[in-house]
């Protein structure tokens, strides 16, 4: 039975039974009414200054040249420069190649780790989860530098181990595909923990009875994994993959610090290219145009990923 709109419990001399909060609100003085907006004001100010304004300003920058604090309009010249620059396409290729390898590897690894961490009889769960998650807590700069030291040709620990085992040290940062491998290893090491924790929480939402029913029916652990765990985790997997893809498309810190764009631009990423154009050559028009092209690419990919996975549900 409909009891009327919910009444606030505070009661007291300000409310009677037939008034709603809105009416009370409107009856208060201007001062009282402005209080919520005043509370929001710091964030709104921050948002406009540091987020809305730069977004709009850089959109304007896309269509001109910004030199010595004066702006000249040049139409779509910046876009045509970026879209005909072989270096941009090299950066695009590098970024996509690393993404296409890193994201599946990382997602699979995170899934396996999450399943292992979810095992009921596991001892020391808390510590293991902490250890798995800790790389995420490190700051990007320190771990990039340390990984650079690990893979140093002369003195790095990786080559020292290889030499100990009788092999020759590898030119990790001097060969294109090896440099990309180093980056993929570093990024996977860092972010797998994050995805593991997300998937772990997803795993804990899958009812135990499904597994019991499956084992009663004779399904082995592997079969259970593919028939129950993976479909049950679908939303979480989609979420993790979209985040990883976005992260890889915007990759900057690790290549900048580890390889500086790599031997002969082999590990140059899109954002690195934009950084070079914007802050080394001071061509903010081209950098803004490039960043909006990147926005479109990310938006298109995200839309595609969501669409592809939604289609399955429609069946």
């Amino acid at each position, binding site marked *: 039975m409909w009891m009327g709109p919910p009444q606030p419990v505070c009661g007291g001399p300000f409310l009677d039974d037939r008034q709603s909060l809105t009416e009370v609100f409107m009856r208060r003085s201007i001062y009282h009414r402005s209080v919520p907006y005043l509370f929001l004001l710091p964030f709104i100010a921050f948002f406009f200054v540091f987020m809305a304004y730069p977004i709009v300003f850089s959109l304007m920058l896309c269509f001109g040249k910004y030199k010595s604090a004066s702006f000249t309009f040049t139409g779509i010249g910046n876009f045509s420069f970026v879209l005909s620059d072989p270096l941009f396409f090299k950066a695009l290729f590098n970024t996509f190649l690393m993404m296409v390898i890193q994201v599946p590897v990382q997602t699979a690894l995170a899934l396996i780790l999450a399943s292992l961490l979810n095992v009921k009889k596991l001892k020391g769960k808390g510590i293991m989860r902490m250890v798995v998650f800790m790389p995420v807590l490190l700051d990007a700069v320190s771990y990039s530098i340390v990984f650079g030291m690990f893979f*140093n040709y002369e003195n790095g620990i990786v080559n020292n181990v290889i030499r100990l085992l009788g092999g020759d040290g590898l030119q990790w940062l001097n060969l294109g595909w090896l440099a990309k491998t180093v980056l993929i290893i570093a990024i996977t090491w860092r972010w797998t923990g994050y995805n593991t924790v997300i998937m772990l929480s997803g795993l804990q939402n899958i009812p135990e009875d499904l597994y019991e029913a499956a084992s009663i029916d004779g399904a082995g652990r592997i079969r259970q994994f593919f028939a129950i765990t993976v479909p049950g985790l679908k939303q979480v997997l989609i979420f993790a993959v979209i985040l990883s893809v976005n992260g890889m498309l915007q990759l900057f810190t690790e290549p900048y610090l580890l390889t500086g764009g790599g031997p002969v631009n082999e590990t140059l990423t899109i954002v690195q290219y934009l950084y070079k154009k914007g802050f080394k050559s001071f061509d903010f028009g081209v950098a803004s145009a490039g960043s909006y092209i990147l926005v479109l690419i990310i938006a298109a990919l995200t839309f595609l990923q969501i669409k592809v996975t939604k289609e399955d549900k429609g069946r």
Partner: protein
Amino acid sequence: MIRAAQTLKAMIDAGIMMDFPDEWNDRITALNNGQICTLPYPAWYNIVMKDSVADQSGLWAYAPMPAFEGTSGNVSLGGSVAAISASTKYPKTAKAFVEFSLMNANQADILYGQSQFEAYKPYYDAECYKEVDAYFGVAIGETFARWVDSPKIDFGYYFTDVADALATAIGEIFINGTDPAQALSAANEAAQRAIDSY
């Protein structure tokens, strides 16, 4: 440039060049491990050597840079520049300030304390430049004052774009083994594209 690239490539192929992916740190490590016998690097590096490789005092000497016949090997590497914005309202004042602050002996005194080699030529006659350095056994200031006849290079407005293209070309020549003439002309095109877009 092609000749220089070919010579350097020959040195790399002969195995006498050392590779530093992380330039600064790897160089110091190599120095400490006694892996370097010749280091083509500028005057101001002496303070770094005194800090990081103190135990090699007395083992190092200065020599003039090698060069092709008919050229001098001396160049200027590093150092700082003062720039005045083109949109300033007071260009003459700014210029006067730069002259006041940088073209006198006082600032050279400060920099000398930091073992920096001075660009202000009248200072080369100062007493401190004649002091013999314990680490190298010579008067550093006097030594380098002899080698300041480097060719005047106009870096131009588009230095970063050209330097970028050159860095790619050098990587192509030394790592990928591309023909120097080809790599340098590709760099020329890339730099020209960037410059044209301004």
